[in-house]
C-alpha cells in the first residue's frame, strides 16, 4: 500500500509539474498576448491621430504661438485640439498627448496639469529619442520615470506629423502610463500565492527588470539579472530571445517553476513563475481532486460507452432485422437510418442495395411469368384422355374422402354415446362401413384403371418420343404429375396407410402411420409387420393375410393393436386389400389404419361403469332387501307374540326390527352420500391438512373418547385441494373405521401423517388395531363389504372413501401385515402439496405429537 501510494505520489508529482508548467506557459503566452495587444491598440490610435484634420489644421498655429500660450490664436487652437484629443486621452488613459514643432519642442500637451511645464521643452525620456527616432517612423521609447510623478513609469509612443503635402510638421507622442501594463502583469491568476510575471529588457550586462516585482517593488529599471552567474535564469533566456519552461532559481535565489517568452516587437523578455514549494505543496490535495476527477471521467466514459453501445446495438438489431426481412424476400424493407456515422452509412448503402435487388427481382419475375405463360400454353395441348382419367379418379377420391370423414365422425360419436345408443350406432356404422367398402372397391378399381392409363400414357409418350423431341417432355410431365397426385394422397392422408410386401416387409408407410406409432418413417420401414403388431393380435393378422393371398376374400377388416415405439398398445381399426398384377400374382398389401384408442378407452370406461352399476344394483337389491325382510318378518312375529301375550318376545322381536330399520336408514344415507361423490361437487378449494383432519376428528370424537383412542397428527404443513366436505369424510371414515376395528388393543393409537419418499406425497391413517389378513384386503373397498358381520356399519364407508379419493385424482390402498398388526391406509390426492410456509419443526417425531384441542386425547 505504501509503495503503491508513493509511486502514485511520484507519478502525481510529475504529472502535477507537467500541469503546473503548462499552466505557467499558457499564463506567459497570455501575458505576451496582452502586452502585444496593448501596444497594437495604441499604435493604431497613434496612426489615427497623426492624420487627424483638426490636428493638422491647428498644429501650425500652436507651433506659431507656443511662446505665447495666452494668445487668443493659441488658446483657440488649443481649445479645438483639446476638444478633439481629450476624449481619446481619457479612453486610452494616456498620461499625456504631446505635440512638437519640427524642431522637437513641445508646443502642445493634453495634460492640463503639466501643460506649462512641457511647453518649449523636448519630449521626455532619455536622449530625446522619442523625437529623433519619430521623424520618419513610429517609435516606442524605453520605459522611463518622470520626475513630475515619482514612482510611476512611462513610455512614449511617437510618430511624425506630415501635412497633406507631406511636409514634416512635428511629432505626435502618446504618453503611455505603465501602470496600465503593470496591472495586466500583476494579474496573478493561475500563479498561486507566490507566482508573478517578470518583464525585462536586455541591457549590456544582463536583463533589466521593467516592472515592479512582487518581492522587490523598486526593481523596475533598477534591478538587473546580470549575465555570467552560475545559472542562466529564465528571464535572461527570455531577453536573449528564448522561449521555454522548467524548474529554475529566481532573482531571490528561490527555486521556482517558470515559463519564459521573448517578445520580439518590444525586444523584451517575459517570465511567468511560481515558487516550487507552492507548486508541489498542493500535490496531495490535487491528487485527491485528480482522483475524483478521474473517477468522474471514468464514470462519464462508462455512461457514454454504454449509451454508445446501446445505440450501436439498436442499430445493429435494425440491420439484422432488415437483413432477415430482405433474406426472406421482403424487398420493400428500408433501414431508413438517419444517423451520420458509419452505421448510418451502412444502413443507407444496404437500402440502396435492396432497392437494386428489388428491381432485379422484378425483372426476373417478369421473365418467369412470360416463361410460365408460354409453357402453360404448351401444356394446354395436353392429352384429353388423361384429363378424363383424372376426373374419374378425383370423383372416386372425393367419395372415399367423404366416407372416411363420416366414418371418423361416427368413431368419435361412438365413444361418447351410452350403451343403448352404442348398439344403434354400431348398426349405423356397419351400413357406413358397407358404403365405405364399396367406395374403397371403386377407388381400387379406379386406381387400377389409373395405373393402366398411366401406363398407356407412358407408352404413348414413349411412342411420341421417338417421333418428336418436344412431345416427350410433355408426356413425362403428365406421368410425373399423376405420380405426384398419388403421392399426395398417400403422404397427406390423416389416416395411416402402408404398403406391405407379401412376406410382411414394410415397403412404404405414410407420415400419419409413423406418427401413430411414434416412429419416423425411416425407422418404421426398418421394421417388419409382425414386430409392430401386438403379440396377441398376430394370429388374427396372419389369418387375414392368408385369406387375402388365398383369394378367399378381397378385403380384410380387423380391430387390432399395434405396438407404439414406447411399447404401449395402439388400438386400430384397419382394412387391408391385396394388390395383384395383371397375371394375378400378389404385388403388395395396401392397408388403411385408423386409430381407435380413444374409442377403445371409452368402451373400456363404459364397461367399467356398467360393471359398477351392476354391482351397485346387485348390492342394493341384496343388502337393502335384507333389513326389509327382517322388518316384515319380525313384525309378524310381534303380532303372534301379542296374541300369545308373550311380552318378552315382543321386546326381543321389536329389537330386531329396530336394528334393521336403523341399518336401512344408515345405508340409505350412505348410498346417497356415495351417489353424490363425483356427481355433485363443491368447488375445489385449498385447505390445510390440519383443518380437514380437525374437522373429521370432531365428527368422530364420541367414538374416539369412548374407546380411549390416542390420536397423533402430523404438523407438516400440507395443503389439500378439492371438495372440502368430501375430504373431511375421507378422514372421518378412515378414523371411524380404525376405531371400530381396534380389537382388544390396550393402548389404541391412530396416527395421521404424511410421507414423501420421492414418489409423491402420500397421506396415511395408521392404527395399531386388529389388522386385516392379506387375503381379505382386496374385498375391503367393495360396496357393502364387511369383514366383521357383528360390527356396526353398512360396508359403504370404505367404498365412499375410495370413490372420493378417486374423484380427487388419487389412489387408496391399505397395508397390514395381518391380524393384530394394525392397519395403514395410504392414499394420494391430486393437487396435494407441501405448504410454502416454513414448517415449525419437521420430522417423524413431530408426527407422534398428540393433537391439541378439538380432539379428545386419552
Amino acid at each position, binding site marked *: 500500500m505504501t509503495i503503491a501510494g508513493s509511486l502514485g505520489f511520484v507519478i502525481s508529482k510529475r504529472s502535477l509539474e507537467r500541469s503546473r508548467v503548462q499552466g505557467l506557459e499558457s499564463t506567459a503566452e497570455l501575458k505576451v498576448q496582452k502586452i502585444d495587444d496593448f501596444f497594437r491598440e495604441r499604435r493604431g490610435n497613434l496612426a489615427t491621430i497623426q492624420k487627424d484634420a483638426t490636428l493638422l489644421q491647428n498644429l501650425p498655429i500652436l507651433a506659431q504661438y507656443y511662446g505665447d500660450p495666452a494668445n487668443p490664436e493659441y488658446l483657440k487652437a488649443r481649445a479645438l485640439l483639446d476638444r478633439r484629443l481629450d476624449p481619446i486621452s481619457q479612453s486610452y488613459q494616456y498620461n499625456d498627448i504631446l505635440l512638437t514643432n519640427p524642431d522637437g519642442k513641445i508646443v502642445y500637451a493634453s495634460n492640463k496639469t503639466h501643460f506649462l511645464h512641457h511647453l518649449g521643452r523636448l519630449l521626455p525620456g532619455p536622449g530625446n529619442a522619442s523625437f529623433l527616432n519619430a521623424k520618419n517612423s513610429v517609435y516606442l521609447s524605453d520605459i522611463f520615470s518622470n520626475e513630475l510623478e515619482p514612482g510611476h513609469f512611462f513610455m512614449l509612443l511617437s510618430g511624425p506629423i506630415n501635412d497633406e503635402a507631406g511636409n514634416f510638421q512635428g511629432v505626435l507622442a502618446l504618453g503611455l502610463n505603465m501602470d496600465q501594463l503593470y496591472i495586466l502583469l500583476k494579474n496573478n491568476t493561475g500563479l498561486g500565492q507566490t507566482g508573478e510575471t517578470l518583464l525585462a529588457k536586455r541591457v549590456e550586462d544582463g536583463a533589466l527588470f521593467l516592472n515592479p516585482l512582487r518581492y522587490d517593488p523598486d526593481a523596475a529599471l533598477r534591478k538587473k539579472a546580470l549575465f555570467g552567474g552560475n545559472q542562466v535564469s529564465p528571464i535572461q533566456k527570455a531577453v536573449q530571445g528564448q522561449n521555454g519552461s522548467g524548474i529554475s532559481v529566481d532573482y531571490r535565489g528561490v527555486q521556482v517553476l517558470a515559463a519564459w517568452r521573448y517578445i520580439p516587437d518590444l525586444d523584451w523578455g517575459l517570465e511567468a513563475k511560481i515558487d516550487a514549494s507552492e507548486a508541489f505543496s498542493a500535490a496531495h490535495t490535487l491528487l485527491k481532486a485528480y482522483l475524483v476527477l478521474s473517477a468522474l471521467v471514468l464514470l462519464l466514459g462508462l455512461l457514454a460507452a454504454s449509451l454508445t453501445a446501446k445505440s450501436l446495438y439498436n442499430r445493429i438489431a435494425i440491420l439484422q432485422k432488415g437483413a432477415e426481412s430482405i433474406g426472406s424476400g421482403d424487398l420493400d424493407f428500408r433501414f431508413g437510418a438517419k444517423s451520420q456515422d458509419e452505421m448510418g452509412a451502412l444502413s443507407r448503402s444496404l437500402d440502396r442495395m435492396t432497392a437494386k435487388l428489388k428491381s432485379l427481382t422484378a425483372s426476373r419475375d417478369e421473365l418467369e411469368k412470360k416463361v410460365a405463360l408460354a409453357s402453360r400454353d404448351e401444356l394446354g395441348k395436353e392429352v384429353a384422355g388423361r384429363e378424363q382419367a383424372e376426373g374419374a379418379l378425383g370423383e372416386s377420391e372425393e367419395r372415399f374422402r367423404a366416407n372416411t370423414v363420416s366414418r371418423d365422425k361416427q368413431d368419435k360419436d361412438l365413444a361418447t354415446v351410452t350403451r343403448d345408443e352404442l348398439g344403434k350406432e354400431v348398426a349405423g356404422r356397419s351400413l357406413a362401413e358397407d358404403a365405405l367398402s364399396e367406395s374403397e372397391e371403386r377407388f381400387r378399381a379406379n386406381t387400377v384403371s389409373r395405373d393402366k392409363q398411366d401406363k398407356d400414357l407412358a407408352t404413348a409418350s414413349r411412342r411420341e418420343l421417338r417421333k418428336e423431341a418436344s412431345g416427350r417432355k410433355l408426356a413425362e410431365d403428365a406421368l410425373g404429375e399423376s405420380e405426384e397426385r398419388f403421392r399426395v394422397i398417400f403422404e397427406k392422408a390423416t389416416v395411416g396407410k402402408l404398403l406391405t410386401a407379401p412376406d410382411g416387409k414394410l415397403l412404404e408407410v405414410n407420415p400419419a402411420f409413423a406418427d401413430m406409432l411414434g416412429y419416423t418413417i425411416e425407422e418404421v420401414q426398418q421394421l417388419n409387420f409382425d414386430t409392430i403388431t401386438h403379440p396377441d393380435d398376430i394370429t388374427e393378422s396372419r389369418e387375414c393375410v392368408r385369406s387375402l393371398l388365398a383369394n378367399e376374400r378381397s378385403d380384410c377388416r380387423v380391430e387390432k393393436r399395434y405396438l407404439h415405439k414406447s411399447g404401449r398398445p395402439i388400438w386400430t381399426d384397419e382394412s387391408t386389400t391385396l394388390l395383384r398384377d395383371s397375371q394375378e400374382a400378389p404385388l403388395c398389401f395396401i392397408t388403411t389404419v385408423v386409430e381407435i384408442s380413444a374409442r377403445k378407452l371409452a368402451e373400456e370406461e363404459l364397461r367399467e361403469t356398467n360393471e359398477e352399476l351392476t354391482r351397485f344394483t*346387485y*348390492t342394493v*337389491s*341384496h*343388502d337393502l*332387501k*335384507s*333389513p*326389509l*325382510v*327382517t322388518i*316384515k*318378518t*319380525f*313384525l*309378524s*312375529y310381534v303380532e303372534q307374540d301379542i296374541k300369545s301375550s308373550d311380552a318378552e318376545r315382543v321386546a326381543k322381536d321389536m329389537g*330386531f326390527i329396530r*336394528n*334393521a330399520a336403523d341399518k336401512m336408514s344408515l345405508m340409505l344415507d350412505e348410498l346417497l352420500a356415495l351417489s353424490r361423490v363425483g356427481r355433485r361437487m363443491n368447488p375445489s378449494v385449498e385447505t390445510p391438512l390440519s383443518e380437514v383432519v380437525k374437522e373429521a376428528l370432531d365428527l368422530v370424537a364420541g367414538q374416539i373418547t369412548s374407546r380411549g383412542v390416542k390420536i397423533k397428527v402430523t404438523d407438516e404443513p400440507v395443503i389439500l385441494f378439492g371438495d372440502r366436505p368430501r375430504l373431511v369424510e375421507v378422514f372421518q371414515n378412515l378414523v371411524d373405521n380404525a376405531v371400530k376395528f381396534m380389537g382388544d388393543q390396550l393402548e389404541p393409537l391412530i396416527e395421521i401423517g404424511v410421507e414423501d419418499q420421492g414418489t409423491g406425497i402420500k397421506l396415511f391413517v395408521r392404527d395399531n388395531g386388529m389388522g386385516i389378513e392379506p387375503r*381379505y384386503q382386496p*374385498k375391503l373397498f367393495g360396496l*357393502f*363389504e*364387511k*369383514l*366383521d*358381520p*357383528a360390527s356396526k356399519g353398512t360396508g359403504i364407508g370404505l367404498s365412499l372413501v375410495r370413490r372420493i379419493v378417486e374423484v380427487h385424482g388419487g389412489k387408496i390402498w391399505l397395508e397390514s401385515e395381518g391380524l393384530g398388526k394394525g392397519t395403514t391406509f395410504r392414499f394420494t390426492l391430486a393437487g396435494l402439496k407441501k405448504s410454502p410456509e416454513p414448517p415449525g419443526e419437521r420430522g417423524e417425531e413431530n408426527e407422534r405429537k398428540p393433537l391439541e384441542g378439538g380432539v379428545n386425547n386419552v
Partner: protein
Amino acid sequence: MFEGEPVLILLVEDDPAHAEIVRRNLTDFRVANRIVHVADGQAALDYLFRRNQYADPAASPRPNIILLDLRLPKVDGLEVLRQIKEDDELKRIPIVVLTTSGAESDMVNAYTRGAGSYLVKPVDFDKFTKLMDTFGYYWLAWNKFPE
C-alpha cells in the same frame, strides 16, 4: 309329525335377524334338532375343514345340510361353495343357497359351483314362513342323507 334321525344344519348367515328367522322356523320342526350358525364365509370354512377354533372334530360335527347365504363377510358364499365342492368328503353335503339376491348371475354361479338348491328370501312374512315349512318337510323330513 315325522320320525327320523335328528338333522344337523350348518347355517351360514351374516344377518343375525335372518338367522333368527331361520332358527324359529326350523326349530318348530321337531325333527330338526340342531342348527349350527356361523356368521361369515371364513368361519364356515374353518368349521367344515376343522381349523382354528373348530379343529377338534368333536366341536365340528359334519352337517347333513348347509344353508348358505351368498353375500358374506371375509369370504363370500360362492367361494365357500367352490372350496366345499373341491373337497372329496365335503362335496357330498347338499348345499342350499338362501339369499336375498334374486340375481340371475348369482343363481348361475351357485349352481355351476355345485349348489343343490337356490332359495330367495321372500320379503313377505307368510311366504318366508311357508318357504321354511316346505324346506323343512323336504330336506328334514323326506330327504335321506348318508350315514
